[in-house]
């Protein structure tokens, strides 16, 4: 079991309220991702759940038990840190065994569990090495191994992939998702990378300035963002926003259209524009098009597209893909 409930949780550092008031339910077995820009309070929220920071107000329940004042070790949670936080003076075996040793388990039992975890994580050949002799990906696996041997109620991941290179990050992303499929244990994962959030999460919690902007499945957030912040944060490249008379035509203060929901034509369309800088990714081309009266829009076109900088093009938003927002930035359904 690993159901976590936050009720009116607040965290203040002196006069500064980093998290003013948060309510959140995390169901048993869910993969929840906290995502948001730097300084939005996502890591602080994770540390409050872990017990590494004390809450200023509110309660944290784990499996129906009030854990607000419990020390980290008594909460039954395991955490994987951004810097791996491995013990550099211990071998991989001793690193993974450490939580079991602290729990006072019998040495034979520790041995069995460590070997089991090492097998799952492909670390069997590295058990006698020290963290300094491992690559970044291997170190991250050791950190995960140290977490899984405890058989925790939930795993907490604090930006675990941000120190890895791009290719390794993709592999580890898949490995962590597979681990979740195998263990079916609750996982809370903090990242500022919305691609990680979209690809891994059952449920995404978008945070901004210590407040929850929206909670939902990745596709829900993508298709029906609750406000301008979520609309701009989820999706890459980010959504184009248009204000002024064009928005008024749609009875909104702001309208939004994703780059992939704009059709490009060289002959006819809704908005006429001039092609600016383009980013060619092979499969896709991200094009910046300046439209008179609307400003600069990003368009996702096929990699085969043959327009050049300075060419005149026509843009047409796809049917039903326009997002409408009121003056406060809230979505108009």
């Amino acid at each position: 079991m690993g159901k976590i409930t936050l009720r009116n949780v607040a965290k203040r550092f002196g006069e500064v309220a980093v998290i003013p008031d948060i309510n959140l339910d995390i169901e048993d077995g869910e993969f929840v991702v906290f995502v948001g820009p730097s300084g939005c309070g996502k890591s602080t929220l994770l540390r409050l759940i872990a017990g590494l920071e004390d809450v200023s107000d509110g309660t944290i329940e784990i499996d129906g038990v009030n854990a607000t004042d419990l020390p980290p070790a008594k909460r039954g949670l395991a955490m994987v840190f951004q810097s791996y936080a491995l013990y550099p003076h211990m071998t991989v075996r001793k690193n993974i065994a450490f939580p079991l040793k602290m729990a006072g388990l019998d040495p034979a039992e520790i041995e069995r569990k460590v070997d089991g975890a090492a097998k799952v994580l492909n670390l069997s050949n590295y058990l006698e090495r020290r963290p300094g002799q491992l690559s970044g990906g291997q170190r991250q696996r050791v950190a995960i191994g140290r977490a899984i041997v405890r058989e925790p109620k939930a795993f907490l991941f604090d930006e675990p992939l941000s120190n890895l290179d791009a290719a390794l990050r993709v592999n580890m992303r898949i490995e962590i998702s597979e681990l979740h499929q195998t263990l079916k244990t609750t996982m809370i994962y903090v990242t500022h990378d919305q691609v990680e959030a979209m690809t891994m999460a059952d449920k995404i919690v978008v945070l901004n300035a210590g407040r929850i902007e929206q909670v939902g499945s990745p596709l829900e957030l993508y298709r029906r963002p609750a406000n301008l912040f979520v609309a701009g944060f989820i999706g890459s490249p980010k959504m184009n926003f248009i204000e002024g008379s064009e928005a008024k035509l749609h009875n909104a203060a702001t309208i939004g259209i994703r780059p992939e929901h704009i059709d490009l034509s060289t002959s006819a369309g809704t908005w006429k524009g001039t092609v600016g800088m383009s980013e060619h990714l092979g499969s896709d081309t991200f094009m910046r098009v300046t439209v008179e009266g609307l400003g600069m829009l990003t368009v996702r076109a096929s990699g085969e597209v043959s327009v050049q900088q300075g060419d005149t093009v026509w843009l047409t938003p796809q049917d039903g893909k326009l997002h409408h927002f009121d003056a406060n930035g809230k979505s108009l359904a």
Partner: protein
Amino acid sequence: MARALSPRRRLLTTIAAWFVALLIFFPVLWMLITSFKTEASAVASPPELFSADWTFENYTEVWARSDYPRFFWNSVVISIGSTLLGLAIAIPAAWSMAFVPTKRTKDLLMWMLSTKMMPAVAVMIPLYLVFQRVGLFDTKIGLVLALMLMNLPIIVWMLYTYFREIPGEILEAARMDGASLWNEIVYVLTPMAVPGIASTLLLNVILAWNEAFWTITLTTTKAAPLSAFIASFSAPQGLFYAKLSAASTMAIAPILILGWFSQKQLVRGLTFGAVK
């Protein structure tokens, strides 16, 4: 880019460095040479650097006239004892200052350091009287306590600097892994700080070994260490430079050897944290 020195400049720099090094080392060298001279040659005027009649007599006489092994043993107990006791107190203190700092931590550290700026003689009479009243005068325990207190600010400062270099996330990971505060210090912090702790230990053993003011003031015979052993050769029969030099050489030799073998560790320890 490294600065390139011309060969001539390099030569001049080397000569200057050797000159300064010899100037600093000269008193020790003079003491060492004098310890092998006769008393007459030691006080000859004008002074002679090398004597015609070398002798080991000073060493044999110093050894015969005093109980060197007892002084040596007292020095060992006092310097190592005060350092270990200091570490036992300073490790938790430095831990809390490094990892759970408060608004006043910096002030506290500065205050601790400021006590080292006070002249020792200012508290000589009160400390002397206290030691006599509580029965610590001329005891090894008394000197262990006194020297521990003298060096505690340095031990705390050094350890604080090392501990600040240890990432807090590792200690948090230990906490998540179920380590109590004690286990966190024993299994994680201390092994990671071993280089720092080792150099703190070495430096404080040297400081305690070389301490003369308190060790001479607070002892007479039973607990007297090698500093008192040296002093005993300057009185009351008058000054016997050759024997005094032999006694001094015998007193500093053990710590000089320790310092020689551990110089790498000491330099590393003293520059720890200076460059990331």
